[in-house]
């Protein structure tokens, strides 16, 4: 669908852009086949949103107001306050100076059926006649003429002759600008011709004909109809059947618009001319209108209001015109259920989704899609339902089994002169669905060597019961069942899976293939050990059966299988890692606290204190020993230099020991060594004196 939408849309967009070539290349590369739908209510609602009413009752300029009003008229069901908008139009009408604004004001007033004061309009009429008289280009003719048509009844008797003369001249001038291929030039100054100009010229000419009457205008009408035929001969078409008028050169005069504007304008011109000159004189093929309907419908709703107007205006014309009204065939539902015995419903509507007078709709053929066999229905007439839109048919019968069917329709009208004709494709696809019967479900464990069944159980598919099986690698698992469609024919659904899920979430999937209506799968575990990654343990057996035509898809937990497989040999392939749970992958990590080294064990302070006392005991023993041995200090010198040096020497030793104590307590090695140097020198000097004195004393004693 999307592809078709862009095909048409692209055309309008690509047209003015530099990437046109790229678009066109893309356009040719796709061949969409689509079922065309009329404009849905949702589309209409979306389109209504495009046109926003302003506070003064307008939708912007006069032109935008007309565009909006015409679009909303086509969309229908709008709740417009006509008096407010009419007020805007009447102010605009009196203030408008140029023919273009007057044209749009009067056209808008025509849609809303506004009423104006007569003198205001007569002033406008004379202004328009002057404009038509002075006109030189198609646009100069188009706007005044179009405006005059809207106020035809205000043309008074006395100026009618004058007006007729002016308009006859105008018609001649318009005709003179026509080209041999059906296109028109905007003016004599232009060298290029344009399809959009042709549309404008046709509408202007039709307007003149409606004002002056058709008498003695045969040659002009013939010229115009031949121009239309030439235009339609040169129509372009897409692969999906859409047809449109291409614009050959960029239309600079009336704002461009590309193929969308050209096609819409020509369609309008042709329909206006047909309504005035009579539809019998214009011979346009029904296929052309069908192509145009496809073109305008397949582009979806355009988002630019100016473009949406062109599209909706064209759809409005296709919905109701005097030439040909294309019909769109669509299926409200392409699914027919055998369970609820649905009837085939076909909607035949106009492009805007409205009903038609009774038609004869027949199914030409209905062929099963998968096998190109015989048509099950041919030339069956559909029954018309109330409302003129829907036709129904008892499509389901004993011979219509579940499956897909390609349908071809034919539409004809009982009234030979009907303007209704089929537009868009008349082929469609329906799917017939039904409940599938599953029977004789059997799960067996078979011995590989002997082929005898070690275990066999029958399960009832309506109860979805489970079973528990155990097997080892020397056995086979056999699962079989039968499936039949509602008409008791073999049924082969697309999805017949047997899924084995190991407790470690490793999955194995097997297709079960049919022979007739019998489905059977044998799993030889000896051959499968490698594929099962030698994983022993619990497996969940799941049978999944589903198909697009099956109304009762089956997801059956058949039970659990306790499988005993041999140990995996060295180098066996490991199962692919099963995706870790996303939550755990991103979860915060567990906290880590550092374990500090414990301090070494120490004895209690009391024990240390006890031992301290023990270590002091030898000193006490020594002091007692001295006392006991009667040690004395009688040799201590009592005078002179020896006394001084003895005092100095022992003070030196005492201070060195004190220094050691201080070193232990707080001093560092450098201070200690420095002090020790001084104290040592002092102690050596004083020691030398006292020791030499003591030596002298002892040698005297010896010699004495």
């Amino acid at each position, binding site marked *: 669908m999307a592809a078709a939408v862009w095909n048409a849309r692209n055309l309008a967009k690509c047209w003015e852009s530099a990437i046109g070539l790229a*678009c066109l290349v893309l356009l040719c590369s796709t061949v969409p086949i689509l079922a065309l739908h009329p404009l849905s209510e949702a589309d209409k609602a979306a389109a209504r949103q495009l046109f926003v009413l302003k506070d003064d009752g307008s939708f912007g300029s006069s032109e935008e107001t007309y565009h909006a009003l015409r679009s909303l008229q086509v969309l229908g069901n709008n709740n417009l306050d006509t008096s407010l908008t009419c007020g805007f139009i009447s102010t605009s009408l009196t203030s408008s100076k140029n023919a273009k604004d007057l044209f749009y004001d009067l056209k808008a007033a025509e849609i809303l059926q506004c009423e104006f004061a007569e003198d205001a309009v007569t002033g406008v009429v004379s202004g328009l006649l002057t404009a038509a008289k002075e006109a030189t280009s198609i646009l100069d003719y188009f706007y005044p003429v179009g405006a005059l048509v809207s106020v035809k009844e205000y043309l008074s008797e006395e100026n009618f002759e004058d007006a007729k003369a002016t308009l006859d001249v105008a018609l001649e001038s318009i005709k003179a600008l026509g080209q041999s291929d059906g296109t028109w030039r905007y003016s004599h100054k232009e060298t290029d011709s344009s399809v959009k100009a042709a549309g404008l010229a046709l509408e202007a000419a039709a307007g003149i004909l409606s004002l002056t009457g058709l008498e003695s205008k045969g040659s002009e009408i013939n010229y115009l109809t031949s121009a239309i035929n030439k235009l339609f001969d040169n129509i372009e078409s897409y692969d999906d059947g859409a047809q449109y008028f291409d614009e050959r050169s960029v239309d600079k005069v009336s704002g461009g618009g590309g193929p969308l504007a050209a096609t819409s304008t020509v369609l309008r011109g042709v329909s206006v001319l047909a309504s005035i000159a009579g539809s019998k004189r214009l011979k346009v093929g029904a296929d052309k209108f069908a192509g145009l309907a496809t073109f305008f419908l397949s582009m979806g709703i355009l988002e630019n209001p100016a473009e949406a107007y062109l599209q909706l205006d064209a759809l409005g014309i296709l919905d109701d015109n005097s030439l040909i009204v294309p019909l769109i065939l669509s299926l409200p539902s392409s699914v027919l259920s055998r369970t609820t015995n649905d009837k085939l419903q076909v909607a035949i509507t106009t492009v805007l989704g409205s009903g038609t007078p009774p038609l004869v709709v027949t199914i030409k053929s209905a062929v099963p*899609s998968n096998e190109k066999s015989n048509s099950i229905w041919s030339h069956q007439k559909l029954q018309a339902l109330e409302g003129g839109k829907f036709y129904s048919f008892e499509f389901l019968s004993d011979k219509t089994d579940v499956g897909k069917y390609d349908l071809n329709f034919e539409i004809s009208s009982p009234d030979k002169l009907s303007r209704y004709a089929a537009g868009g494709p008349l082929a469609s696809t329906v799917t017939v669905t039904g409940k599938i019967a599953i029977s004789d479900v059997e799960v067996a464990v078979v011995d590989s060597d002997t082929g005898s069944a070690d275990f066999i159980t029958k399960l009832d598919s309506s109860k979805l019961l489970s079973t528990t099986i155990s097997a080892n690698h020397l056995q086979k698992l056999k699962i079989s069942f039968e499936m039949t469609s509602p008409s008791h024919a073999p049924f082969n659904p697309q*999805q017949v*899976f047997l899924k084995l899920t190991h407790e470690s979430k490793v999955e194995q999937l097997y297709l079960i293939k049919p022979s007739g209506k019998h489905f059977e799968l044998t799993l030889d575990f000896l051959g499968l050990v490698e594929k099962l990654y030698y994983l022993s343990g619990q497996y969940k057996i799941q049978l999944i059966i589903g198909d*697009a035509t099956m109304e009762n898809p089956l*997801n059956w937990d058949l039970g659990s299988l306790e499988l005993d497989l041999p140990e995996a040999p060295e180098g066996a392939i490991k199962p692919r890692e099963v995706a870790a749970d996303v939550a755990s992958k991103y979860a915060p990590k567990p906290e880590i606290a*550092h374990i500090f080294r414990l301090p070494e064990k120490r004895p209690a302070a009391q024990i240390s204190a006890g031992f301290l006392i023990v*270590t002091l005991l030898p000193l006490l023993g020594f002091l007692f020993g001295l006392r006991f041995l009667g040690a004395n200090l009688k040799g201590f010198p009592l005078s002179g230099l020896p006394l001084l040096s003895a005092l100095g020497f022992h003070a030196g030793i005492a201070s060195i020991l004190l220094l050691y*104590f201080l070193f232990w307590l707080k001093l560092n090695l450098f201070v200690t060594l420095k002090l020790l140097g001084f104290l040592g020198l002092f102690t050596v000097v004083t020691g030398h004196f006292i020791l030499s004195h003591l030596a002298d004393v002892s040698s005297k004693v010896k010699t004495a």
Partner: protein
Amino acid sequence: MALPLSIIVIIALLPICWGFSEEQPTDQRVLVLLDDIALKSTHSIFFKSLLDRGYELDFKIADDPTLALQRYGKYLYDALILFAPAVEGLGGSLDVASVIDFVDSGHDLILAADTSTSEVIRDIATECGADFDEDIDAVVIDHFNYALTSENDHTLIVSTDFINSSVILGSNDIKAPVLFRGIGHSVNPASSLVVEILIASSTAYSANPSVELTDRPALTGTSIGLVSVVQARNNARVVISGSLDLFSDRFFHSAVQKFGSLTKYPRSGNEDFAIELSRWVFHERGHLKVVNLQHHKAGEKLEPPMYRISDQLEFSIEIYEWSGKHWRPFQASDVQVQFYMMSPYVLKTLTHNKKGLYSTSFQVPDVYGVFQFKVEYNRLGYTSLAVSKQIPVRPFRHNEYERFIPAAYPYYGSAFSMMTGFFIFGLFFLYHK
């Protein structure tokens, strides 16, 4: 002379101030590549929501020969939306490598595939870590979870299996299921960067709906990814969707009723899903920044040059989240700090003061060496944070050990009693008569 020069400087700086930056991490300029311009109207709600949020969308046809992602070494766009599944070759200077370079340099990508996905688009997805089903005609089929529509090939899948992440999918629950029609992909389970955010149900499979199966499908069950996201190490974000229709107006507006269910949702969850996803991928959510990593000893203010073993320290860091317009304090209770040397010695969860300041205190371990404070925050959907600061830890100095150990008093006592004894013995030795 000075005036023109300053104007030139200002003009040169303009594009830098305007667009994605560290301080303004939301994307601004987005290149939208389409198969055809009509997608602009068929996916208008999605694009309109982007335009309403201030993005500049540059719509281009994907094989436009004037396409370029960068000029003079500067990227022209902050993000790329590739809604062009059918394009056979990207136009201009674009190819698979240049798109991957674009992502590698920290830019974002939304890629949507379809049933007619070309080789180029598949290659880009593969480079991002999502492998689409190699069978070109395969679509995801589910005969159990399909939407009831007028058409009936069970390829319009109703999925409710989205990931539970308020960062990626917004804080409001997506109440209605998401409609999906397209192709499936698989993600390497070992990959830590790709996350499937929408997966198929266990009964789904990927195959051509109009062909009888002869071999088991390549992708089945919950291993089929429908929509995946990638958050690259450089914080580039990528969305890979197997369905372009998922973003379309039609799916946004369509009512959903699942087969076998009586609940009928008036609207699908697609609009919420797609728009919330676009908020995430364009960094309106889940983009974090970390500032002001601080640490000091307990009771001090200044950061020391090194710590001593067993010091008590205080650590703090500020984390802010980008809300699309401004930075607001990030609030989470699972931010962790590591004190790391070869392996984490301490790993502690930080507490926050609701104003973005995360702090904790702990004791330096009794191991010395060069440590790092490391905050690594990898949570689903959030940009990954990784900051670290190096700090040495030294052992005790010689004079920092304990003095006057009670257990050593017997030794002290014996030494001093020895010294006293020596002094007294010296006196008596010399002067005894």
